[in-house]
């Protein structure tokens, strides 16, 4: 085991034995990820602000910028770049903290992946800025972007595989060194999320590398539109769980420590992660419920599989509240909800993720509506959907990431999260919550009135119904302004933590398992079993529709550049 410079300040536990600090060299790797993530966040948020202003009807973009160009920046940099960099950096830190420092080879894999992803991101971003790729982050064919854009995306995906191999191999090494022991929980979760990501990105990698790249390069003339779309969504839904699971890692493993409590159940936590892997991939067709070319029974099968995530979600909710209640009662809380008062509301490391959890209640309910087969037609491609994922992604996941940054960045830079920055963190969280109330609620209601998503300001030829949308767009502009201020506050905090706050040791909080928790069944760590089940589910869900799409395919499409 690595020798450590600093004195351990926590007591050792059997479960998370050993290293308590992210190794110094690993810290550089993680910080490099955060660096790119936060630049993407700033650019993406600026685009977001411009979008809400344009959609209010009172603002026009300066000459060379187009609305859909800005929207492509927003989607690509926030949904694909910010998230992927932050998550892979976070997972590397979590594994290094709980399984031990990466070996040189493992760390080099991390760096190679990081640079591939960074080069890919730069390529894609430049093409968008040159207005050669205003195809939005879903890049549906037959809109055809410049081949450099697709090549950039391919590098981003392939780079992410190399990157995550680094920390996954570290987990594997821990397992070899500690036979018959349960692996550190958060490391195990990082590996779960990586597995989910690799299996999911296979779809989009095939789409980009084998279909879109040769087509945009001029090697082939036509492309199968429905096939590319289906491959995209095979990836696209699992993508949302790739965003969410790191937030759950923080909830399960970090939050209990921050509130001074313990992990409620190790086995249930692992079980829920396994279920998320199983039920997040064979379900992508729920994004294509109104597509032609896919038969209704195939759609229904995927709707059923989609709904299964209700179970691990409920396990997670139960574990969270059980942890909160256990801790509150330990501190002397009485009555049914007395424990609520005992939670550390003044700690931004707790408050930000907590607000994220709260946002997941309406967020999750909205998701069930979206995936409800016939009901989907009421909301499909309306701005309701955008409201939905600003709750789940841009609030639940993102606020949890913000809360995690408050301890992770200073932990890595050897500084401390000061009380004055903590106050700013609280203000940031409130700013975000208020902004989302306006933005997300505005979007949900406007969507129910039929307003389409991905649309610049328009009065639709003076149609009456379009007039009812205007006031909601103003509300979104107000909310969006709050959110933009929130991003600036967040980035100010990060810059301070990176370079300016006093030197010191900020803890990377990892909770211990509650003493009354039961032993974890070893089957949960047997990935071979789960991979076989996953493959079976994917085959059940996708064989028939993909076979049909290929078998019945009409003449392929040539490319269009309509922007």
């Amino acid at each position: 085991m690595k020798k450590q410079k600093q004195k351990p300040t926590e007591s050792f536990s059997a479960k998370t034995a050993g290293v308590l600090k992210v190794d110094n060299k690993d810290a550089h790797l993680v910080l490099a990820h955060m660096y790119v993530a936060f630049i993407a966040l700033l650019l993406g948020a600026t685009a977001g602000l411009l979008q809400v202003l344009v959609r209010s009807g009172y603002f026009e973009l300066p000459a060379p910028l187009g609305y859909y160009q800005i929207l492509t920046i927003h989607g690509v940099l926030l949904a694909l770049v910010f998230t992927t960099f932050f998550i892979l950096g976070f997972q590397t830190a979590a594994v290094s903290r709980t399984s031990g420092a990466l070996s040189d080879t493992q760390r080099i894999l991390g760096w190679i992946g990081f640079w591939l992803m960074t080069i890919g991101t730069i390529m894609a971003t430049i093409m968008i800025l040159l207005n050669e790729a205003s195809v939005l982050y879903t890049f549906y064919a037959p809109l055809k972007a410049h081949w450099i854009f697709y090549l950039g995306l391919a590098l981003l995906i392939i780079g992410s595989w190399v990157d995550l191999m680094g920390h996954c191999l570290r987990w594997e090494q821990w397992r070899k060194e500690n036979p018959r022991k349960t692996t550190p929980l958060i490391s195990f979760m990082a590996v779960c999320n990586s597995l989910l990501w690799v299996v999911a990105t296979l779809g989009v990698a095939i789409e980009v590398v084998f279909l879109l790249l040769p087509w945009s390069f001029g090697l082939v003339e036509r492309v199968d539109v429905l096939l590319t779309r289906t491959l995209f969504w095979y990836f696209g839904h699992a993508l949302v769980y790739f965003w969410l699971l790191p937030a759950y890692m923080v909830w399960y493993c970090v939050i209990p420590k921050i509130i001074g409590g313990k992990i409620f159940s190790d086995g249930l936590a692992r079980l829920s992660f396994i279920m998320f892997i199983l039920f997040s991939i064979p379900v992508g067709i729920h994004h294509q419920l109104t597509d032609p070319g896919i038969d209704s029974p195939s759609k229904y099968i995927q709707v059923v599989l989609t709904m299964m995530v209700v179970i691990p979600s409920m396990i997670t909710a139960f574990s969270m509240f059980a942890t909160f209640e256990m801790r509150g009662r330990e501190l002397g809380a009485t009555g049914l909800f007395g424990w609520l008062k005992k939670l550390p509301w003044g700690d931004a490391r707790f408050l930000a993720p907590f607000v994220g959890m709260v946002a997941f209640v309406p967020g999750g309910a909205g998701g069930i509506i979206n995936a409800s087969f016939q009901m989907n037609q009421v909301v499909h491609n309306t701005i309701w959907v955008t409201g939905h994922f600003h709750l789940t992604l841009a609030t639940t996941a993102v606020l949890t990431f913000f809360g995690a940054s408050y301890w992770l960045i200073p932990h890595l830079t050897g500084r401390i999260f000061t009380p004055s920055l903590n106050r700013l963190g609280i203000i940031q969280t409130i700013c975000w919550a208020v902004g989302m109330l306006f933005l997300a609620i505005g979007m949900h209601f406007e969507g129910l009135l039929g307003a389409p998503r991905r649309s610049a300001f328009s009065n639709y030829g003076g149609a009456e119904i379009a007039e009812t949308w205007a006031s909601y767009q103003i509300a979104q502009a107000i909310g969006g302004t709050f959110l933009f201020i929130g991003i600036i506050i967040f980035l100010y905090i990060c810059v301070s933590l990176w370079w300016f706050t006093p030197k010191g040791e900020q803890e990377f909080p990892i909770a211990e398992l509650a003493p009354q928790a039961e032993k974890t069944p070893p089957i949960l760590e047997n990935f071979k079993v789960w991979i076989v089940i996953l493959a079976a589910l994917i085959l059940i869900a996708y064989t028939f529709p993909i076979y049909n799409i290929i078998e019945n395919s009409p003449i392929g499409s040539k490319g269009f550049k309509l922007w």
Partner: protein
Amino acid sequence: MHLHKYEKYWLIFGGASLIVFLLITGIMAFHYGSHPPSSIKTINYEKVDEIAPFNNPGVHRVSGKDWDYEVVLVASAFYYNPAELHVPKGSKVKFIITSKDVIHGFEVAGTNVNMMAEPGYISEYTTTVDKAGDYLIVCNEYCGVGHAQMHSMLKVVD
């Protein structure tokens, strides 16, 4: 692995509502025929103007079918052909649409008539229009610079 008593109740409650919910959607679909639009007919998108029924877009009265009217619509960047449609209130209408270029949307705003129009595929949806009024049709899938200007009007008349 042993579950806490309350957790058992919680999960049984969750599992049971899940089953009820899926049964309802399943019965709605496979017993009452309320499917999302899932036509699997294909077409050569480059020859749409020559192929029936798209060589004659508009509202057509039909007989001997399960529906009274066929609304045939062609989507292309950035308009629908025809730009205005009239159908009598209370009639059963089948919307038949396709695209001549990229992916478009077809949404009758404020209703559940909502489907994708994809090059090479024909999208169909049958419904009864039982409320008179002017209904805005919007394109709800990004199709290029003119996307937010792409609309049409469905007039349901008495």
